[in-house]
């Protein structure tokens, strides 16, 4: 199985672990991640205004590149996934956007949302299958109680992202089970960590993070996993009361598969 | 007619809508009582069921200068006469592909399922259809020249 891969800026710098272990694990699982030869930053936030075109172009270019190779586009960072999937949805459904973007890009054949965007977790669930992961695990994380933190960007708006039940998701819990650990459900797993507003209002981020971590601890979690570098940062750097290890889910996967 | 000398110059399409008595005609009534507008181009003929629409009626309409024909009936499974709309669907599929072959564009003919509770759907369907026909312009095919003024 070969997929085009869009890593994103943060995975090349501060979140190298997220990327590195994803690649190592994919190898074990028989998935080839072909990094796009050329890609630019997705912009990290989806531009909601109807007159924003230029800020969506980098996502379209990535999508177009994958289309040319006839491959699905794999994403890993929650923010990149959110932006690219929503832009792709625009390109499928918004005629005005289609026209403007294609007029600008002057492609041989207009891009109208043909590429399928797949998050690494979706790949694990839908393309590889958690059962298969179970088979490949050599180092099961038995007895480890892990809380999944989804954040916002993977789940909402659910009608576009179609990732999982936005209020009661299960994909990360299923993942945790597949590597032999015990999932711990926390009620704040799909509530915001403070996001980029931590640059502006650290207090807000601290409040949100404290709530998330204390609730996870109350439920007995020993660690929290995430797919988003910004969530990772907030949960790690902005907690004031308690500390829990915050880990990228790919790192645990690699550990369980014995390639860490 | 003198009433309309001025507006006559602008192209006004003529659309014949066959509506079944139980669903779509009632849907049109609901569109009316909800004051949901659609162009005057649409003229409705009441039939007991969409299966009462003989392909001859459609041909005749085009011969006599209609620019579009729409047949509206109950949703599949909801026909007042159990199965009439299924007959209509089959007959019209066949007829429309034949008309297409004769040069009457596929967009000029349509079958829609509109229930008695779907006033909004009736009006949006008619607006859409009228717009499509307006864009296609006058239908010249199949016209009985003896009917021309």
């Amino acid at each position, binding site marked *: 199985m070969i997929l085009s891969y869009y890593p994103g800026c943060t995975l090349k710098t501060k979140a190298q672990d997220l990327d590195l272990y994803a690649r190592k694990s994919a190898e074990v699982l028989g998935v080839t991640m072909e990094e796009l030869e050329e890609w630019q930053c997705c912009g990290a936030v989806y531009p909601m205004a109807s007159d924003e075109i230029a800020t969506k172009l980098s996502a379209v270019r990535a999508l177009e590149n994958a289309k040319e190779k006839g491959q699905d586009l794999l994403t890993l960072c929650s923010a990149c996934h959110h932006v690219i999937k929503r832009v792709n949805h625009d390109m499928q459904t918004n005629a005005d956007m289609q026209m403007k973007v294609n007029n600008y890009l002057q492609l041989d054949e207009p891009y109208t949302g043909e590429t399928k965007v797949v998050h690494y977790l979706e790949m694990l669930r839908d393309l590889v299958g958690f059962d298969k992961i179970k088979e490949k695990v050599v180092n099961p994380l038995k007895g480890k109680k892990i809380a999944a933190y989804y954040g916002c960007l993977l789940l909402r708006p659910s009608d576009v992202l179609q990732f999982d039940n936005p209020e009661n998701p299960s994909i990360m819990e299923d993942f945790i089970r597949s590597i032999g650990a015990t999932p711990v459900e926390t009620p704040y797993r799909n509530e915001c960590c403070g996001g980029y507003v931590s640059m502006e209002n650290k207090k807000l981020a601290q409040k949100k993070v404290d709530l998330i971590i204390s609730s996870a601890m109350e439920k007995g979690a020993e660690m929290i996993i995430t797919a988003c570098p910004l969530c990772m940062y907030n949960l790690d750097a902005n907690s004031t009361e308690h500390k829990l290890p915050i880990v990228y889910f790919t790192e645990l996967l690699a550990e369980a598969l014995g390639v860490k | 007619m003198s009433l309309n000398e001025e507006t006559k110059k602008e192209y006004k399409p003529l659309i014949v809508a066959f509506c079944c008595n139980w669903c779509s005609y009632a849907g049109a009534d609901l569109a009316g009582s909800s004051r949901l507008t659609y162009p005057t181009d649409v003229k409705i003929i009441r039939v007991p069921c969409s299966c009462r629409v003989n392909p*001859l009626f459609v041909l005749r309409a085009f011969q006599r200068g209609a620019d579009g024909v729409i047949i509206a009936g109950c949703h599949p499974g909801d026909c007042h006469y159990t199965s009439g709309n299924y007959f209509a669907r089959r007959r019209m599929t066949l007829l429309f592909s034949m008309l297409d072959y004769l040069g009457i564009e596929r967009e000029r003919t349509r079958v829609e399922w509109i229930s*008695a509770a779907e006033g909004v759907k009736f009006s949006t369907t008619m607006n859409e259809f009228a717009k499509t026909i307006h864009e296609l312009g006058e239908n010249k095919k199949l016209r009985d020249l003896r009917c021309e003024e």
Partner: protein
Amino acid sequence: MQKIGVFICHCGTNIAATVDVEAVTEAIKNEPGVVYAANYQYMCSENGQALIKNAIAEYGLTGVVVCSCSPRMHEATFRKAAQEAGLNPYMVEIANIREHCSWIHKDKVEATEKAIILARAAIAKVHLNAPLISGQSDVTKRALVIGGGIAGIQTALDIAEAGFEVDIVEKSPTIGGKMAQLDKTFPTLDCAACILTPKMVDAKSNDKITLYTYSEVESVKGFVGNFEVSIRKKARYVNTDLCTGCGECTTKCPSRKAKSEFNMGLMNRGAIYIPFAQAIPNVATIDPQYCIHMKTGKCGLCEKVCSAHAIDFKQQDEIVEQKYGAIVMATGFNLINLDQFDEFGYSKYPDVVTSLEFERLMNAAGPTEGTLLRPSNHEHPHTLVFVQCVGSRDTSGCGKPYCSKICCMYTAKHAMLVRDKYPDTEVYVFYIDVRTPGKNFDEFYRRAVEQYGVHYIKGMVGKVTDKDGKLIVQGSDLLENKQLKIEADMVVLAAAVEPDPSARSVASMLTASIDTNDFMTEAHAKLRPVESPTAGIFLSGMAQGPKDIPETVSQASACAAKVIGLLAKDHLVNNPCVAQSNELRCNGCSNCEKVCPYGAISYIEKEVNDHGVREVRRIAQVNEAVCQGCGACTVTCPSGAMDLKGFSTNQIMAEVDAICR
């Protein structure tokens, strides 16, 4: 050539404001065949009708065109007027210039032009009209009520009271429906069981009423006055004639995995069970999905303990065929599934319950025997939060677009009952609007606030989480402009109502129309609210739309009155707009026979005289009492022999020509 009179209605200003009625009158005056044309303010009024009658007499009219509102509204009125003046009623045609013209167009010139065209089409049609004589058919003097909740029971009792036989088909093992599950009823706080169970007993003991419980309608054929219905009596694996309802088997049954439907899954029941103590009929039913004997062949304990020898593991479903004159849809409602509303934590927290589950938790016959306890730990709750409009008034696709109508009142009831029984509790109600239109309803709600001190909060809950065994309800208080986080012990969700899932399939069998929310459509929203547009089908209770018990009972009785009105007739006048075969043109191909959904067409050998040639041919014959006039046969007929009276090929062609002129 017909002598046609055209009558144009102003409908006050409904038509006249957008259509120049004078111009229409002028324009059609000179149409061929039109000998008289007039307009009047209200054609449907007595004076308007007199105008028509006088003109028929004075000008010897042979056809009448009324340009007015929809024929679905007043066609019958004008036909009757014509008949009174001695004209065959089917010589009247309506041009719909209100719903299809004046109400939807703005430009007076264009609307007037369209009205003239519609009038011309009607005139063209009348030219080809022929007098039609209606046949008659008999009425089977027996009614079927589908659904045995309070709506169905009330309708059946009223019909039986008038002396007609009536059968109730109920899919669960007992009648009683949702009302049997309720604790108290608003606005008087009567106990639901106290007022319902006597009616259930009446239904059982009334010799005009036959109960088919644990049964479903399998198929429906026929038409008003003459429905043929087959009813599947599902196997109970218990001989109901022998079962005494002692309940010995239900207590001994070792299978305890099945969720009790009556108690909303809050407790389990045996595989053999009687839904509740007052069930009618009071007999046991075996649930084959959970019965150990039926799955493994072992156990059979119930058979051993039954002194009446009523257990019959070999029982089969039974099909009952019955004829009816009228059918009542009383299929009722359910609460919506809350999978789409996990922000309220329903699937996660046992202490988040629906309002119907709450009824059971408050009910003396419920799982906690009337003591309100938290389902999670069986402790007494101190803080309760009620959330209204969960899934109602929701256009996002997760819920239902309509107001469920009953939640405001039952939530006030719940809040009041909790405060009354447990004065140490704090009760919060999150509301968007409090809707209390009904006799003594607003007074009731105000009592909850003023007398019982229930905290009503204008706002909505956004998320329910938990902390240290408490539920944290995060919501907005719009009047205080605050976000609240209430530490609660229980959360009660007023989930939206929806028609029972069986409604759609039953409605399809009855060919009765249903709206986009699966509620039954009325023949007229205001004037014929308990009848379906399909003749002989009547609507009772929630199947037609959300309503509370007082309203359901009134509607059920209204429905019964309509059914009685139908059953009281010995004969029904048939629709004369039926198919007719031209025997000289018929080629005997049988195509029409195959498409007819009613089996109204048969083939006979008949001697015909075809231009002097006498021969015996196989030709189609229409049974006019059975034909419903859909016209499927007319289009399928390759030789053009089949035609539909009132909507003949020539008539519709003439309309097409008139419109396309």
